[in-house]
């Protein structure tokens, strides 16, 4: 996939809460309680997991395995390896539920970051560069509700798709392809400092646009 195709370019329409491809919206829906059928919160499920509840762990898997698998597959491009990574992440959470703490952020965002990092480790054929306990994700974004997550997902895609192409390219190469900054500089023919600035600018833009 070409770098620029990672986040398809989209027009900006901040007032659209259910953006179609080509649209974004400006409201942070993730902070609001919407959706139905949320019988168990993540906190409640994890309390049961800590107490050895297999059913609760299966529910956590049901809620987030799709997200984790999709990230792993995006990095590894191999369904078998992506499932292995997914299974391992959730099994590790089952064996060490205290590796995640709600004081640090939300379970969904934490799992997303862990999924990406574990997939990159697998891609590089190396042992995990860090233990999951080391990953701290400061985020109030709650991904418990599927509808809400879907809307936020569209919004993020819209924002990233509207970044300058070179920023998208650098971010993709670092985040999804697992390349180091010097490798990115070499492949793009850009100075190291430029690569760094592009990645940081991309993340800054994303954060600003997602702010309520």
């Amino acid at each position: 996939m070409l770098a620029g195709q990672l986040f398809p370019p989209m027009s900006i329409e901040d007032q659209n809460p259910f953006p179609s491809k080509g649209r974004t919206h400006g409201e942070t829906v993730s902070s609001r309680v919407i959706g139905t059928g949320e019988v168990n919160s993540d906190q409640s499920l994890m309390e049961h997991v800590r107490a050895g509840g297999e059913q609760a762990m299966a529910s956590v898997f049901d809620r987030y395995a799709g997200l984790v698998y999709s990230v792993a597959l995006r990095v590894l491009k191999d369904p078998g390896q992506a499932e292995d990574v997914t299974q391992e992440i959730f099994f590790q959470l089952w064996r060490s539920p205290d590796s995640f703490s709600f004081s640090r952020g939300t379970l969904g965002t934490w799992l997303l970051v862990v999924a990406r990092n574990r997939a990159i480790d697998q891609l590089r054929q190396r042992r995990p560069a860090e233990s999951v306990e080391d990953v701290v994700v400061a985020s109030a974004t709650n991904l418990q509700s599927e509808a809400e997550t879907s809307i936020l997902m569209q919004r993020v895609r819209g924002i990233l798709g509207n970044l300058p192409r070179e920023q998208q390219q650098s971010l993709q190469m670092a985040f999804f392809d697992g390349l180091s900054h010097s490798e990115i500089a070499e492949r793009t023919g850009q100075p190291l400092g430029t690569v760094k600035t592009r990645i940081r600018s991309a993340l800054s833009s994303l954060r600003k646009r997602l702010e309520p």
Partner: protein
Amino acid sequence: MTDAQHISQDDLALFAMQALSAEETAAVRDHLSGCDVCRDELAGLEGDLAMVALSVDQQPLPAGARERFVQRLKDDARAVSAKKPKGAEPMLLERTSRWRGVAWAGWIAAAAALIVAASLGLELSTLRARLQESDNKVAALEASGSRERQMAQVLTAPSAQKVVLTAPKTPPAPTGRVVYLASQGGLILQANNLTPIAAGKVYELWVIPADGSAPIPAGLFRPDAAGNGSVVLPQIPQGVKAKAFGVTLEDAAGSKTPTAPILLAGAAPENGE
């Protein structure tokens, strides 16, 4: 890499993605171990990266992935519970000591007996563990039964006072119920407690397709004086699997794309259409 005191944002972002060289990574890690400011900044960047991860196209899990995970959980739970009983080993040692006085000629028989003893010891400890588990369950059931009896007494006692509590001066929250049959494109919405809206405005219902395509407008409606509104069998495509439904406020003619904020929203359950 660092300014006077802290790691630059550029490098923290690269560190978060493990995109620094080994030497740079070690230097950042060393700094982070003693710098709350940079640790907080890093956690914020990880939050940004979580959003980048969220941008990937969603893919269904491979067939059987859930079953494989659940089976692994069960196997692990069994392995853990099998480790818990501690009686087996001491019992084996105890029986072993009894055989110390036996003549050398009996060692072969003793060894065989030891194996049997160990086996019996393990079996006994397993049975004890099961018995303990059963006792615990019975105790839990008894406790639960007692609590339920007390609940029943409270709920059915003629002298019990029954009071409905509501938030003072808080209007009831708007709600909506959608019934949707994707195969026929059939959809019915019944909404209640809707906020009155200005002339020239309407509520609009949206179907959010499960495949990530654009939301589909599914009818305009205005609430009556009691705050009730409905949409009955709007013209929408057939066979669209829905991930969610939402209601927005639009101009009277409606909109082709929804306008923030989302006033009502709900996820469609996995089962059923």
